[in-house]
């Protein structure tokens, strides 16, 4: 199972706790992980990636294994520690605004 940590406002929107677990078919990439997340929790569609072009929203970042994966290709394989469920994939709201 893939583990995903959501920011506070997306937890309340999807009515879930901090961490959700997903079955994601291989190869596990940002795109396939987010596709699975949105299919399981459709309230999240458009809140992480823009409708139409599927680009990451500007004020969100993706982290895993203490690395910033935000600007990696959406089709690049995610680290083995994420695909094995050892480490979670973090979706983080940028610290900005007031």
């Amino acid at each position, binding site marked *: 199972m893939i583990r995903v940590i959501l920011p506070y406002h997306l937890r309340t929107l999807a*009515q879930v706790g901090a961490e959700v677990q997903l079955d994601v078919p291989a190869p596990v990439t940002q795109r396939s992980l987010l596709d699975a997340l949105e299919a399981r*929790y459709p309230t999240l569609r458009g809140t992480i990636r823009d409708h*139409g072009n599927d680009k990451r929203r500007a004020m969100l970042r993706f982290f895993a294994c203490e690395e910033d994966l935000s600007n990696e290709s959406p089709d690049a394989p995610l680290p083995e520690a994420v695909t094995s469920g050892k480490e979670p994939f973090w979706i983080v709201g940028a610290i900005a605004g007031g």
Partner: protein
Amino acid sequence: MSNVRVLVGTRKGAFILSSDGKRQKWTVSGPLFAGWEMYHLKGSPVNPDRIYASQCSGWFGQVIQRSDDGGKSWTLPGTPGGELPKGMGGMPMGEPNKFVYDTSPETGKPLTTHQFYDGSQHPWEFKRVWHLEPSLSDAETVYAGVEDAALFRSTDGGKNWHELSGLRGHGTGPMWSPGAGGMGLHTILIDPINEKRIYIAISAAGCFRTDDGGKTWKPINKGLHSQYIPDPNAEVGHCVHRIALHRSRPSTVFMQKHWDVLRTDDAGDNWREVSGNLPTDFGFVIDVHAHEPETIFVVPIKSDSEHFAHEGKLRVFRSRTGGNEWEPLTKGLPQENCYVNVLRDAMSVDSLDKCGVYFGTTGGQVYCSADGGDSWGAIVRDLPAVLSVEVQTLP
């Protein structure tokens, strides 16, 4: 006895204020959607328990919420939270936050561009929903005014949205430009006698009208004069802040422009200024008394450089003559050291026998007058900055 329900959108959540017809004792519920910007909430006139809400965030974008029990519970239309989707192939049954602008059917390219702050042409980019206007006859139909300025409509209770692109496609789109707060379509008025006639207003493009249910539109800005536009007869480019009408006279529309208060008696074909003796004719809100079509309310704001109450006094001005002759209404409102603003969607009226008037401030107060403006009291004083106020009069 009738009741009133006041729907308040703020910078950090929504609140529902409830009272009986006396409007003296209030119940406050909220914050709903805490931490999100709630631009606007509005109930359906057909089914008052059906309420639509615009929820947005700089981080997570736009969400549309809907309640079918008067605000007690909320869902994203067509996308149940915390449950597996039940639609075909596991896909959601709606995409209530998907606002995609129409493109040219021939080329697939954007329909038009608009003027950007630097004078260059810029493509339309969706940012948020400023205003939701439920249909007067069908609870499933609702209009959304969005930034960048366009009009969308849902006919399935907010599950799916489609642009009424005749508005942007009529030819003046390249001359529209954003105001300081963005290029938002902020007001939608549906003619209660002829629902195919709709007025909308955009900052900073002006007013437009359709007479065929949204297929075709025309600018209706003749008589508006804006000092920053070199052409005194400019068809578009005016910074209209708000328009309002009385249901018994839908061809008479009142306007608070950036500067100037105006009225039209021919459905927008010609406007004339009625600022009269107002201490300043800059402001955002304007509304009409529920039972007196010539009684209107504004809140003068000092200037476009100083967005706060004039002379540090929070005053509603009322005209009983459809403009030109105005009286200050001050009883119960702070008359010194008050420097709040009242934003364009933050005034509303109820339809009780003694018409109630309501407005919210950027200081977080929501004021109510239960006697047509003669006296005022704060329902709440310390909410986040108020973006919108809508009132429902309930049986």
